[in-house]
Structures are given as structure tokens and as C-alpha cells.
């Protein structure tokens, strides 16, 4: 048996044109903007791109792209969701722990800010 029951989502739904909300079984209510979720795509390609300096030959800057939105969000086993985006990208697998860590609700943002203030980075 795992040391402690892992967190699990109870419901996930789109909230308006640009947000996703997740209700967790510990009572927490997470909110995410699609823009932040897309920018945090955990696939190897996106990770590598984030670590590289910006491409000077890039035609469109991120701000000039249309707003990102998921086309579908299928389940991956019992541990993650895969997000297929409207820009055609669909290789990011967002584990439940990762989704929880990305929560943008005021409470989580405050906690992350405090952590950054104290230790410098997440």
C-alpha cells in the first residue's frame, strides 16, 4: 500500500473560454489558465525548448499566437491526463501531482510566492 492515499480529482471541467477547474478529493478547488498549462507542457520537446535561449528566427512570438485551448483531454491510466491542444501539440502527459503543483488559485500562488521569497525558486 502506498504510504498515504494519493490525491485524486473528483471533477474536471472547462470554466469559460480560457480556464480549467479541478475539484480534488481533499476539498481543494484548483484553477488553471490554458495559457499557463500550455506553457508548462511537460513533454520532452517543450522542456528542451524552455531551457534553450529564445530562437531569434522564430516567425511568431508566443504573444502573437492565438489563445491556447485543449481540443481533448483523455485519461492516461489512473495517474495522468494527456492534453491535445488546438495548435496541434499533443504529447504532454500531465500527471495528477504535476497538475496539482500547477494550480493557480490564490492560496497556491501565495504559497509558491512565499517559497520563492524564501528559497529563490520552486
Amino acid at each position, binding site marked *: 500500500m502506498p504510504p498515504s*492515499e494519493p490525491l485524486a480529482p*473528483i471533477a*474536471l471541467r472547462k470554466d469559460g473560454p480560457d480556464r480549467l477547474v479541478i475539484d480534488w478529493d481533499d476539498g481543494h478547488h484548483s484553477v488553471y489558465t490554458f495559457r499557463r498549462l500550455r506553457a508548462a507542457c511537460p513533454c520532452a520537446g517543450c522542456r528542451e525548448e524552455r531551457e534553450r535561449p529564445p530562437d531569434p528566427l522564430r516567425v511568431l512570438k508566443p504573444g502573437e499566437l492565438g489563445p491556447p485551448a485543449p481540443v481533448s483531454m483523455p485519461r492516461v491510466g*489512473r495517474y495522468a491526463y494527456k492534453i491535445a491542444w488546438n495548435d496541434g501539440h499533443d504529447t504532454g502527459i500531465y500527471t495528477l501531482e504535476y497538475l496539482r503543483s500547477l494550480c493557480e488559485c490564490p492560496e497556491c500562488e501565495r504559497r509558491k510566492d512565499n517559497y520563492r521569497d524564501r528559497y529563490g525558486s520552486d
Partner: protein
Amino acid sequence: MQPPGGPQKFALPNIQYLVAVASGKGGVGKSTVAANLALALLAQGKRVGLMDADIYGPSIPTMLGIGDVDPQTTPFPIERHGLLVMSMGFLLGPEKAAVLRGPMVQRYLQSFLTQIDWGRLDYLLVDMPPGTGDAQLALAQTAPVAGTVIVTTPQDVSLNVARRGVQMFRQTQVPILGVVENMSYFIGDDGKRYDIFRSGGGRRLAEESGVPFLGEVPIDPRVAECGDLGDPVARRYPDSPAARAYLALAENVDRQLRQAEQPKDLPEVQL
């Protein structure tokens, strides 16, 4: 430095289920429930340990009839009635008080869990001190607690405090196995049921908190008598209504833990 997720938990690979028995308020019979639940699990063929985490007011040694212990010469845990037992009371003796700050409480609890040879156990029950203080937080954040049983009595004052206990375990992400209502009713000599402190409060608390209701344990004057004799009612009077209630409670706790192990499918996303 700790990550935002909280401190790292230590592992107890030889213990299948570490279960905390907690309450918000003192005096609801939490230690009595812990001792009798341990014996009921034992009666169902489980290997069971009982750790008294009530550092400040350990009562498990008295309840199980374990007299003075010389901590210098006694190997821990002590076996009693088939249970493996460890308590702060063994280190202090009956007359001494534990005067400890929070970090020391955490160190004692961790030592009891990790440095004592419990062997292979199906269950290690931890009798928590009342409240939502250092001991509860230390256990919830650092020990691999499989679940918590919240003990309450039917009165509103006890329920209100138990609600805080539910909230604390929620916040620390420890699964709550459910609520048990102690001193729930009394069976008179006429065979009728009397709800002395009213009844149904534990069930209400469970419903409003969205956790299972594990059962109700009746008032039986023999429970106190057995506690003082060091031979809990679940063992001394196995056919009594209270002992039967503890057996049912043990079955429910076991069922909840097994159900929690069943993986659940993730919900679909509504886009």
C-alpha cells in the same frame, strides 16, 4: 529546506496499515476505542500492534494491565493479550509527567515507530492524544498513515471539536477512514435502547464531512470496569453488545482500508 509538498515521510515496510485513532476532544473514550479495536482486529486473526502516542497522558498501559516497567531492562514492544504495545508510560512510570516541547514529541513518536522492532504487523494502531497539536501534525506529516479513525460522542460539543480533527487530517492529506460514535446508547436491563447523550451525531458528522460512518459503541458500565482491570471489554466479555460493536467496527475499518487500495478510474474532463 522542505519542498512545498511538506516533509518527506519515512517508510514502515513491515507494517501493512498504520492507523491513527484520533478525536478532537479529550474524554470521548479514544484510548478505550483504540485498545478494544486492536483486540477486535486481533480476534479476526490479524497481527496487531498498539502504540500509545498520548505522550502527555498515556493510558494504554493501565487499560491493558501492564504494570511498572523498567525501561532499562525491558525489550520493547511489550506483548500483552496478544498485542504488541508501546507507550510513553513505559518510559515515564505512572507518577511522572512528560514535559516536552513539540520537536521532542515528534522525535519520540518517530523513535517509537521506526526504532522499535514491531516485526511484521497487519495493523499498527496509534492512540493519538486529543486535539490537533504537535503529535497529530508530526504523525500526519511524517508517518505513512494509511487512515484515521475519528472518535466522537453524540453531544454537540464533542462533535464540534471532532469536526476540527476531520479538518486537520484533510489539510494534511491523511485519509479519514470514518467516524465512530462512542457512548452512543445504553441497553437497559429491560433490553430497551436508551440514547442518553442523544444519538446520531457521529453519523451526522460523517455525512456532512463526506466520510464513512464506521459504527456506534454503546455505553456499558463494564467498559470502565474492564479498563481499570487491564482487560478490555472486547476480550473479557466478547458476547457483550460493546464487544460486538467493536468487532463490527474492526470489520468496517478493514473494509475501508481494502477499498482505499482499489484503484479508481479518473473522471472524464468536461470540455
